[in-house]
């Protein structure tokens, strides 16, 4: 119990510290006219492809997929926080402290993920009506926890990747950007999972986003509850696996870095 309280306290401080970082980067004005405009444009960019294809069904497919992907994308951006610890010279202090670094890292970027989930929902509910998407009320409210589930799942995946690249800080930008575009390509965002060859569909189902996105599509188009539940359950399973992997391997990657001295101060 004492350990649990201590871990919760460390996680809380990490969240507060990360949130303060975030508001140092963004003011309300730059969030609205910078990030928000970008996010709305990103979703519109893909939804407009449906207009090019002269298909309302495709437009709405792209719109839902590319709105929800914003939650996963932001969760991947959280990877930058991990390497920021190195850049700031605080990583070694963190290693020397008695708490587990993975707790700090897993909590440090939660606000980015939360912002991503909020942005995704904002994009979906602002642009949906503009592109003729009808939201069935009240079942559409289920989209909110499902988007959060997608965000958490991608965040667990992001934390795992953060451990993998902890020794290669200079590659963070490359990994973050390549990963999010790969998720856009492989997770049924712009084409249904059934379009992929079966081996790729299997990989797709093991990645965050794919199953949660299908659950969200089912909710919006009025699919069976059993299908919504199955997809949501699969996303929950994917989240658990990536989180377990992150918790199990983060320490190993860190210790490897400590052994070979690659976890330097502010490289």
């Amino acid at each position: 119990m004492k350990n649990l309280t201590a871990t919760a306290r460390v996680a809380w401080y990490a969240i507060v510290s990360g949130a303060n970082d975030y508001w140092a980067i963004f003011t309300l004005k730059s969030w609205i006219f910078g990030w928000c405009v970008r996010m709305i444009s990103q979703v519109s960019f893909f939804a407009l492809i449906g207009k090019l294809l002269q298909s309302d069904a495709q437009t709405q497919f792209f719109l839902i997929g590319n709105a929800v992907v914003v939650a996963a994308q932001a969760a991947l951006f959280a990877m930058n926080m991990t390497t920021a610890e190195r850049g700031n010279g605080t990583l070694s202090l963190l290693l020397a402290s008695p708490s587990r670094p993975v707790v700090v890292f897993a909590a440090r970027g939660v606000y980015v993920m939360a912002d991503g989930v909020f942005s995704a929902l904002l994009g979906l509910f602002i642009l949906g009506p503009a592109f003729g998407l009808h939201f069935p009320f009240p079942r559409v409210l289920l989209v909110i926890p499902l988007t959060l589930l997608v965000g958490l799942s991608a965040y667990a995946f992001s934390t795992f990747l953060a451990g993998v690249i902890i020794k290669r800080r200079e590659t963070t930008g490359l990994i973050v950007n390549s990963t999010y575009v790969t998720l856009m390509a492989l997770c049924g965002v712009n084409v249904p999972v059934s379009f992929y060859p079966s081996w790729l569909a299997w990989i797709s189902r093991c990645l965050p986003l794919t199953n949660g996105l299908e659950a969200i599509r089912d909710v919006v188009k009025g699919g069976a509850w059993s299908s919504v539940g199955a997809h949501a359950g699969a996303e929950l399973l994917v989240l658990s696996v990536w989180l377990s992997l992150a918790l199990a391997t983060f320490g190993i990657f860190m210790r490897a870095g400590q052994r070979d001295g690659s976890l330097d101060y502010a490289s």
Partner: protein
Amino acid sequence: MRAFLAGARIQLSFFRAYPDALIPFFTAPMFSVIFQMIFKHAGRQDLTGYAAVAPVFIALWWMALFNSGWTITIERWNGTIEMLVAAPSSFAAVIFGRITTTTLAGVVSFGETWIVARLFGTTIHIEHGWAFLATIVVTLAAMAGTALAMASLFVLARNAVTFSNSASFPFYVLGGILVPVSLLPHWVRPISSIVFLSWSADLLRAGLRSTPIHDFGFRLGMVGFLGACGLGVGAWAMHVILRRVRGTGELGTT
């Protein structure tokens, strides 16, 4: 010219040292895969030319925005800008050498995205070779001019750095790099017409079609004109920056 080439050489070294500079070479083929999948799934093989052109603009714009746009800012962060300005060679020539190298490197994405198209069983035919080539050359020049404007403006306006992180997709939409501007709402089209990407993307797509290209000279001229406007703004802003910081002695700190 020597300063220009020195700038080009140092930029090539940066590519080797900082993998982030290579991000577009990884993301452009993936965007190409996404667009190819979309059109293949929709049974619209006639649009695969669009899918081959758009990722090139994404790569070039990324290069202009993040690699070139941050050129001067990073010189300041590294503490090297004072030496660069104090050196007898032209500061603008060195910066422009770096920006030109970055822009030219973006051409690699042409090859990448067209290889992806081949993997999807599509061959891209260029129906108007000279027009296509001329558009590429003028587009690259316009991109370099715009990048210089960004590099200077990011120094003049601190907030611009935050906004630079968000200036990708808004310009992809306004520039009609995948979906033509004619499909955008009417009120957006006047804004698009002052974004050189919109003229350039339309011309490159026209170069892939067998139908004649109308008003080619005027449209190409617009790409060049808007790029020259960017260059003019960039040169003016750089002049202002150098005059201001030399006067205040705050070259590395403003």
